[in-house]
């Protein structure tokens, strides 16, 4: 990037190929006024009382969420593991998944309901709104494999209104306003276990973007690791350079 910042670099050296095409809208919008995700979550909540539990649960509600999270861990996670491992195997990637337990899900419900620094509160936030209670990541060697991963995901989960892809964001095509260097393709995927509907978040990312985003996440966004302002500047610069390198890679492949 030399002396340019990332936005200047993006403008002067635009990325090429499918990652930089505008993110498709068809998995996100089921019909005017209702997203595919919102419609699916409404059905999930209707069928499962545990997912209608909000902040400050009663003891009975807590027990219902314990049982729900046990389903996530024992029934949903193995299915997700099987699916994302298969995707990873097709694209030279590495799969990982994580599941939140009861107290962690309810902690998120409480934080989202009351609002946290920089975010307004979301009244009525419920357990069923924690769509990343099961999260998966497929980390691939480079942007060429990332493009293949996206094709593989579309092939497995479909496209259009019947697709299992409830939501797709492409941060190569459209960087996040609050972190313009964060490069990942997060998707929300529907799944079923024992006849019940669930969701999981799937992140597709390159190895360099994964390392850069983990560093930023753990030192700045969540600050699990203490860092000085100078160290934070270095981390942000590394993340921007990782984004620029991914972009440069696509420019070499698509002349």
């Amino acid at each position, binding site marked *: 990037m030399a002396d340019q910042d990332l936005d200047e670099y993006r403008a002067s050296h635009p990325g090429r190929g499918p990652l930089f095409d505008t993110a498709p809208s068809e998995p996100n919008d089921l019909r005017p006024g209702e997203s595919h995700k919102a419609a699916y979550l409404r059905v999930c909540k209707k069928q499962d009382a545990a997912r209608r539990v909000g902040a400050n649960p009663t003891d009975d509600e807590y027990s219902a969420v314990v049982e729900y999270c*046990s389903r996530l861990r024992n029934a949903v996670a193995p299915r997700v*593991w099987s699916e994302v*491992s298969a995707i990873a195997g097709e694209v030279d990637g590495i799969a990982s998944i*994580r599941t939140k337990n009861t107290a962690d899900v309810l902690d998120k419900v409480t934080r989202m309901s009351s609002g946290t620094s920089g975010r307004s509160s979301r009244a009525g936030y419920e357990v069923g709104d924690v769509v990343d209670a099961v999260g998966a990541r497929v980390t691939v060697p480079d942007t060429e494999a990332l493009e293949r991963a996206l094709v593989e995901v579309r092939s497995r989960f479909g496209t259009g209104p019947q697709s299992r892809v409830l939501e797709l964001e492409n941060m190569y095509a459209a960087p996040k306003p609050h972190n313009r260097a964060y490069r990942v393709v997060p998707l929300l995927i529907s799944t079923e276990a024992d006849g019940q509907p669930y969701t999981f978040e799937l992140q597709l990312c390159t190895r360099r973007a994964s390392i850069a985003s983990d560093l930023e996440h753990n030192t700045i966004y969540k600050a699990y690791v203490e860092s000085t302002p100078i160290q934070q500047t270095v981390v942000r610069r590394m993340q921007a350079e990782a984004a620029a390198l991914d972009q440069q890679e696509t420019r070499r492949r698509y002349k």
Partner: protein
Amino acid sequence: MNDFDNLWACIVHVKKPGGDVVTVFVIDARRYADDQAARDVISEAGQFLDDRRVPAEFEYIQVRRDQPLPDLPTWEDYQRQTESVDGREAKP
């Protein structure tokens, strides 16, 4: 986590009051007779943390047959140490 292999591990992270996240133990599926035996242990660990209302994340990673894992306590070590501190035995 399927019926055909046990080349995975589950690393458990707990969230401390105040928000710090600490990695506390690992369940290495390769140590168990089969996939289901390892999943049973995860279920037991999940119940243990739920009983204590400890916020936690269970992270599953792929491992090679000979891949070393981070030097972390096993589930059995963590369970023993936690019970010795809080004085609560596992439910029968």
